[in-house]
C-alpha cells in the first residue's frame, strides 16, 4: 500500500517536471498567413445590457464582409465574434484568445472601458483595431499605434452638446445628470465643463447609478431639478435609463428640454420615454442612416434592411466603415498584422458614415457632432451641433 502510493506520487512528480520542461520551450506565435482566408475579429456587447449597440456594429461589419466575400475574392475574410457583453473583465480574458486565434485585425472593442483595458494587449500583439464606438478621450493618449476609431470622441461630443445647449437652445441654467458609468459620467463631465466655459450655469450636477437594466427611482433628483428651475436637463448614460428618466421628469412637472448623448440614441429610448420622448434631443458623433437618406447611404440602408430585416441602428454605418478599412487592405494583398497596420492607419476614403482618415494618434480626422430630435416618435436629424437650434 505504501509502495503503490509512493510510486503514484513519483509518477505525478515526473509528469509535472516534464511539463515544466516543456513550458520552458515557450509558446509559438500565431499569425494567420494562409491566403485562402483571414480572420477579422469583432469584440463588443452582443448579449449584455446594452447589446443593441454591439449588435448594430457587428451587423454593419458583417454586411461589409459578406458583400466582399460574395465577390469571390482571392482571400476571403471570416468575421470572428468575441462577445464581451461590454464588460472590460470579459474583454481582457477574450483578448488573448483572439490574439491566439490569429485575427489580423479587430473591429472594436465597442465600449470605452473594454478598449481601455485591452488596448495594451492588441498593441503588444500588433493587431490593428478600429473601434466604431469607443469615445473616451484618453484612449488616444496611450501611444497605441494600433488604435483607431471612426468617430469623434467625447472631447468633441461633450462640447458639441454644450454648444447646442448654450447657443442653439439658448439655455442658461442646465442640470447635468449621469448614470455613474464610465461612459455616462465621462460624457457628462466633458459637457459640464464646456457648458461652464460657454458661459452658462450647471445648476445641478449629480449621478444616479443604474445596475444593468434597472430603472432607478429618480424622484429626489427630479425634485432638485424642479427647485433649480433649469432650462435643460442633460443626461449622460444609456437608452435603458434615459427613456424612463425623461418620462419621470415630465410626469414630475419638469418642462425643461431633455438632452442626451449617443448612448441614448436608440428606438428603445423613444419607447421607454413614452409621451416624454417627443421634443427630446440626442447627439452623436455617429451618423444615423434611415429611409430618408440619399446616395451611398441609401444603398447601405437597403442592403442592411435586406440582410437583417431591420433598420440600421446607431453605429451600424461606423461598423460597416471599420470593416471596409480592413477589406481594402486584404483586397490589396495585405494579410498579416504587420502588413495591415500601416494600410489601416493610412486609410482614406469616403465611407458610408463619413470621410475616413486618421490622425497619427488614431483619432478620426474631423469632429462633427450631429444633433437629433425626436419628432412624432422618430429620431430625425436636425444638423450639426453648431447649426441646430431647438
Amino acid at each position: 500500500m505504501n509502495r503503490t502510493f509512493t510510486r503514484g506520487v513519483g509518477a505525478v512528480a515526473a509528469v509535472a517536471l516534464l511539463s515544466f520542461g516543456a513550458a520552458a520551450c515557450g509558446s509559438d506565435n500565431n499569425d494567420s498567413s494562409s491566403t485562402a482566408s483571414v480572420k477579422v475579429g469583432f469584440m463588443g456587447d452582443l448579449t449584455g445590457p446594452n447589446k443593441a449597440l454591439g449588435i448594430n456594429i457587428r451587423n454593419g461589419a458583417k454586411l461589409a464582409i459578406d458583400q466582399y466575400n460574395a465577390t469571390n475574392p482571392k482571400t476571403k475574410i471570416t468575421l470572428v465574434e468575441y462577445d464581451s457583453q461590454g464588460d472590460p473583465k470579459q474583454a481582457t480574458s477574450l483578448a488573448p484568445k483572439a490574439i491566439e486565434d490569429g485575427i489580423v485585425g479587430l473591429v472594436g472593442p465597442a465600449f470605452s472601458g473594454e478598449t481601455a483595458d485591452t488596448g495594451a494587449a492588441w498593441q503588444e500583439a500588433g493587431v490593428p483595431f478600429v473601434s466604431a464606438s469607443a469615445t473616451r478621450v484618453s484612449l488616444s493618449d496611450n501611444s497605441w499605434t494600433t488604435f483607431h476609431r471612426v468617430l469623434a470622441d467625447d472631447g468633441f461630443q461633450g462640447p458639441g452638446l454644450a454648444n447646442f445647449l448654450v447657443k442653439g437652445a439658448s439655455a442658461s441654467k442646465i442640470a447635468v445628470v449621469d448614470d455613474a458609468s464610465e461612459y455616462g459620467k465621462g460624457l457628462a463631465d466633458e459637457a459640464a465643463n464646456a457648458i461652464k466655459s460657454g458661459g452658462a450655469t450647471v445648476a445641478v450636477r449629480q449621478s444616479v447609478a443604474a445596475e444593468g437594466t434597472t430603472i432607478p427611482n429618480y424622484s429626489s433628483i427630479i425634485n432638485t431639478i424642479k427647485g433649480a428651475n433649469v432650462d435643460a436637463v442633460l443626461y449622460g448614460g444609456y437608452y435603458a435609463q434615459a427613456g424612463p428618466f425623461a418620462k419621470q421628469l415630465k410626469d414630475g412637472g419638469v418642462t425643461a428640454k431633455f438632452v442626451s448623448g449617443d448612448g441614448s440614441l436608440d428606438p428603445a429610448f423613444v419607447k421607454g420615454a413614452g409621451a416624454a420622448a417627443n421634443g427630446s434631443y440626442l447627439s452623436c458623433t455617429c451618423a444615423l442612416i434611415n429611409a430618408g437618406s440619399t446616395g451611398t447611404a441609401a444603398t447601405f440602408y437597403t442592403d442592411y434592411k435586406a440582410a437583417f430585416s431591420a433598420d440600421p441602428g446607431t453605429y451600424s454605418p461606423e461598423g460597416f466603415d471599420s470593416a471596409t478599412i480592413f477589406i481594402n487592405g486584404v483586397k490589396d494583398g495585405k494579410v498579416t498584422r504587420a502588413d495591415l497596420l500601416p494600410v489601416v492607419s493610412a486609410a482614406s476614403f469616403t465611407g458610408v458614415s463619413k470621410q475616413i482618415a486618421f490622425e497619427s494618434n488614431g483619432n478620426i480626422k474631423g469632429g462633427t457632432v450631429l444633433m437629433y430630435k425626436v419628432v412624432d416618435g422618430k429620431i430625425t436629424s436636425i444638423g450639426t451641433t453648431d447649426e441646430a437650434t431647438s
Partner: protein
Amino acid sequence: MSSTKPLRGIKLPWIKTFETLGTRWQRLPTSARWVGYLAMVLLALSLPSIPGLGDIMTPGSSWERVLFYPIGIYILLALGLNVVVGYAGLLDLGFVAFFAIGAYTMAILGTEFGMDFWLVLPIAIAVTMLAGLALGTPTLRLRGDYLAIVTLGFGEIIRVTATNLSFTGGPRGINKIPRPPSVEGVSWLTFSISNVKPYYYLVIFFIVLVIIGLKRLERSRVGRSWAAIREDEDAAELMGVPTLTFKLWAFTVGAAVGGTAGVLYASFQTAIRPTDFPFILSATVLAAVVLGGAGNIPGVILGAFLVGWVPEVSREFSQYRVLVFGAVLVALMIFRPQGLWPSRIRQAELKQGEGGIGQLGGEVGAVVAQAEDNR
C-alpha cells in the same frame, strides 16, 4: 436536538474512494506526506504548461489566464471565506468588500505613490484586517441571518462609495496599476501582459502559504475555539471561550486573505473599477466554499476550481450560467448540504442536525416529522 432525522445526502460514488484514500493518507508517515504535498504543488505549477490541456479545459479562452483568474484567485478567496464560514460558522455575504479593499489599496498606493507590489502587500493586509475589525466588532454579536444581511450591506456600501469618490477613481476606477517587479532575464518571473504564468506561480505561492497558515491555525487553540463556537456557541460561551474575540479573529484572518487576493488581482488586471466587485462575486465565493465542503481545505479548493472553471468551459451557454448556478445551489442544499468533499468532522457535526432553518425551523421540522410519524 437528537430527535431530528439523520442527515440524508446523496451518496456520491467517489466519496468512498476519497475516504479510504484519506484514511491511508493520515496513516502515512509525515515524510511521505510531505513528498506527496510537494508532488501536488509541482503538479499544480505545471498545469498551464501541459501541452494540449488548455484546449481541453478552456477551448474558448486562454488556459493560463483562466488558471490565474478566476480559478487561482477564487481558490484564494474561498480559502479566506472558509475561515469565516467554514471554521467559525459565520454567515458572510459581503466578502467581496475585503477583496475590493485589497485591490484598491494596491491601485492607489501603486499609482499615486509608485509603491512596489511587495511593499503594498503587507499594508493592504493591515488595512483589510482593520476593515474586518471595524465591521466585525459591532456586528458579530448578531445572530446568523442578520449577520449575513449586514455584511451584504457593507459590501454594497463599499462598492457604491468607490463609485462615487474621485479618490478611488469614480466609476472609471484606477488604471496603469504597476505589475509585480520582474526578475531580469528569468522568463518565469517576468510579469507582463502576455506572460501570465508568473502570476499563476505567484498565486500558487500564496495559496500554499495560506494553506500552511490555516492548517497551523486549525490545530492551535484558535482553531479549537472556532470548532467549539461552530458546534454550539452557547456551550462554548459557558465554558469560558471568549466567543466574540475568536469570531473577530476569524473575520480578520479571512479579511487578510481576501485582501491578498485583491492585491494580486489589481496587479494583474492593472485596471480596476467598482463594477469588478459586485454582490454576485460574494455569492459565488460562498457557493465555492459550500459546494466543496465548508471547513475542508481540499474540498474548498475543489469547489473554487469548479466554480471558476465551469463557466469558462461553457461559454456558449453563458446565458444560462447564473440560472444553472442558482438551481445547483438549491439542489446542493437539498441533496448534499455537506458539499462534494466534506471533512469527516463536519459530516459528524451535520449528522447531529444542529437546528433547522434559522434557529426555529429545525424544531419546526422535527415537530412536523414527529407529527407525521404519529398520524
